[in-house]
């Protein structure tokens, strides 16, 4: 089952903060975050693992609440380059090694 992302879209002024949420109906082993700019391939941002381990982007942080089966991506002091569509990809406990991606959150940062 596809994870649900919210909001679907958000517009920020440069310097503002944003939070993007990803919720699953199944127990998660890991959550991956990717950003895709228009016409380009998705680019890796962050991985969060069950148990608290993280790895990824220096200027972007994220959280993973295993109990609530949710993850949030925090974008602080947004820059124009942050614009794009953000996808979470989830790996389910016992679900093998594939990722199931959410429908995406469109983020636009304006001056």
């Amino acid at each position, binding site marked *: 089952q596809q994870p649900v992302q919210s909001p679907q879209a958000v517009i920020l002024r440069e310097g503002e903060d944003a939070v993007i949420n990803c919720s699953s109906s199944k127990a998660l082993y890991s959550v991956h975050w990717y950003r895709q700019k228009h016409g380009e391939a998705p680019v890796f941002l962050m991985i969060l693992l069950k148990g608290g381990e993280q790895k990824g982007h220096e200027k972007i942080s994220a959280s993973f609440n295993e109990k609530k089966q949710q993850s949030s991506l925090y974008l602080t002091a947004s820059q124009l380059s942050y614009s794009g569509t953000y*996808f979470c990809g989830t790996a389910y406990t016992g679900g093998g*090694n594939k990722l199931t*991606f959410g429908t995406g959150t469109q983020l636009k940062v304006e001056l």
Partner: protein
Amino acid sequence: GAGVSQSPSNKVTEKGKDVELRCDPISGHTALYWYRQSLGQGLEFLIYFQGNSAPDKSGLPSDRFSAERTGGSVSTLTIQRTQQEDSAVYLCASSLYPSGLSYEQYFGPGTRLTVT
């Protein structure tokens, strides 16, 4: 080093024809994934290869879709008797190890398939 490459970058075909899409993963990456992305939509998982293990085909939408990976490297996605609803961008990604653990996927630029 070289990233994931895909060919062709664009493919226009007539309804009912067969198409083959190619993916060259990053050298040494054992895991290879195919996704489909329809206009304005998310990434739909199609198939996953890991080393010499049997592929996970659970995302293939119909028996018109098939894929193979030769020699643990190059992969080909074949769509037989194409339909208009097959029109989408087909993305390939590779990973050093299976992504479900803790390894990021590196995506190719995609093949835009248009079925007329």
